[in-house]
């Protein structure tokens, strides 16, 4: 994996390339192995999961049906999934809706002191969230927002907005100046300028940014469990509810984790190419 010597030497190209290919495969499979193992454990009985590593066993779907079983009064997977889905989707839309104009005002037609503004956005990520949880809880309680999706939507929006503004700003810098000049001479309003000129160009960047927001919001555990323990709580909390301090839970936890991770993994897999292209635009030159 040492980064330096990867370029193929021209003479020994065929063999070197082949060996590197093999190495790439081995490294990748090693990298992926923990995930594979987690998925595998979800198909085991608890006794098979809590013992020496077992590659061969009687696979069972029992753990999956156990964790997805609907018991009245208990947080069900479908409920947690719906809460996660809406909180993540809406917060991401709101993030993008606010970050796009903000990024415009920080790059294409920058406000004065745009550096300070940008820095302010980033600096909001410095406060350890554990330190802010009590004030957040008090405010949410007094506003009657505890145990609602709204509180998560607001906080996930705030959590992802700095990232989105930062990334989108660098993408917007990539838009050729002449195009924007032309559009503003035509007297187009900012909103239509953004829509018709800028967005088509930065679309892959938007996708990359939105996907990152989705990933971070989907996997967020702390705020969800602290503010929404009763209602409106999300998939990571549901995963955690399979942990027991007086019994085995590894196989169950693996099954739950597999289900919980699946949506973002699918999204990530589908969107990875676009994501790379998007990030490529962020070439901050």
């Amino acid at each position, binding site marked *: *994996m040492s*980064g330096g*010597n*990867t*370029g*193929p030497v021209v003479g020994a190209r065929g063999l070197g390339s082949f060996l*590197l*290919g093999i190495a790439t495969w081995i490294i*990748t499979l090693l*990298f992926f192995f*923990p995930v594979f*193992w*987690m998925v595998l454990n979800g198909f085991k009985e608890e006794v098979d999961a809590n*013992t*020496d590593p077992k590659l061969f066993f009687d696979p069972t779907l029992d753990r999956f049906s156990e964790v997805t079983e609907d018991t009245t009064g208990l947080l069900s997977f479908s409920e947690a999934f719906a809460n996660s889905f809406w909180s993540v989707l809406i917060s991401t839309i709101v993030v993008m809706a*606010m970050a796009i*104009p*903000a990024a415009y*005002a*920080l*790059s294409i*037609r*920058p*406000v004065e002191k*745009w550096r300070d*503004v940008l*820095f302010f956005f980033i*600096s909001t*990520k*410095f*406060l350890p*969230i*554990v*330190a*802010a949880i*009590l*004030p957040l809880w008090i*405010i949410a309680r007094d506003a009657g927002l505890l145990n609602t999706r709204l509180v998560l939507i607001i906080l996930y*929006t*705030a959590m992802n907005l700095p990232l989105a*503004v930062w990334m989108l700003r660098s993408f917007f*810098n990539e838009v050729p100046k002449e195009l924007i000049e032309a559009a503003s001479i035509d007297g187009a309003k900012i909103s239509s300028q953004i829509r018709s000129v800028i967005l088509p160009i930065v679309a892959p960047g938007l996708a990359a940014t939105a996907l990152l927001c989705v*990933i971070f919001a989907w*996997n967020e555990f702390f705020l969800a469990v602290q503010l929404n323990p009763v209602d409106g709580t999300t998939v*990571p909390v549901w*995963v955690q509810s399979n942990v027991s301090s007086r019994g085995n839970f*590894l196989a169950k*936890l693996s099954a739950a*984790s597999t289900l*919980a*991770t699946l949506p973002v*993994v699918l999204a*990530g897999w589908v969107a*990875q*190419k676009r994501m790379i*292209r998007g*990030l490529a635009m*962020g*070439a*901050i030159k």
Partner: protein
Amino acid sequence: MATTTPTDVIDRSEEIRRIQRKEKWRRRIPLLPALLFTIVVTQIPFLFSLYYSVTEWTIRPARPRTFNGLSNYAELVTNKFFRDALLTSVLMTVSSVLLSLLVGTGLALLLDRKVFGQGFLRTLLITPFLIMPVVASQVWSSQMLSRTFGVVNWLLETVGVDRIEFVSRYPLWSIVLVLVWQWSPFMMLIVLAGLQGQDASVLEAARVDGATSRGIFFQITLPQLRPYLELGLLLGSIYLIQVFDHVEVMTGGRGAANVPYFVYQRSIGGGWSFGQASAFSIVVVVFSIIIATFGLRVLSGLLEGEEAA
């Protein structure tokens, strides 16, 4: 300067200033929703924390909140556990960011070549980044590194090496391992983006000129990758300095309590002293801002851009 000029000039300069002001506001408007939202949602809790930080306030045992000036901050100077946590945080963040950049770059270079099943491999490689931190920690500590049932130790034993209690012996580095595992894919994506943005004709020309692969990598590729590496460094640092789940699940704070974990422990994790915890976190914020200000200056590219105003 305005006082000595004739009135029509004053009019005109006022007119210009009015237009300029209008233009300034026209520029500001698109920024306002995001800015106001961020200020309201993040700064109100911050002000609460600021206020708590100058009070003595514990809810277990329940004591009324009393103003105690700067004594929470004074406590910081003498608190060796806070210093330990600070050191752990620095070690954890720096090593995990640098290592994941390094590993991520390596993976990207491997994947940027023609390899059979390239897309499939890339797909597998990004998965660790998509997994919940709590779950990743659990998988690694109980299924990979565990001395009794862990796969790694099982493999070690089959090749004749004694089993190692990784998480117990090396709590900090076990956490770093998992962080690197999760964040390398992210770095890989960023670097891959950089590699694909390379100008193929420049590479070709260099090769024709007889440059060695090593030479091409260090002279051409790496400088071109620099802004991407900086982006990775920045984003990685911001997220990795806040690591909490990994610390809690893998070690329960044993030997690897970083600042977020320490603050957690002073507050809802059992200390219930919100005054103290707030003071600690305010200091963390101030420190971070100072470091980031310097850091961003060093990372030349990140804050540059067309200066239009």
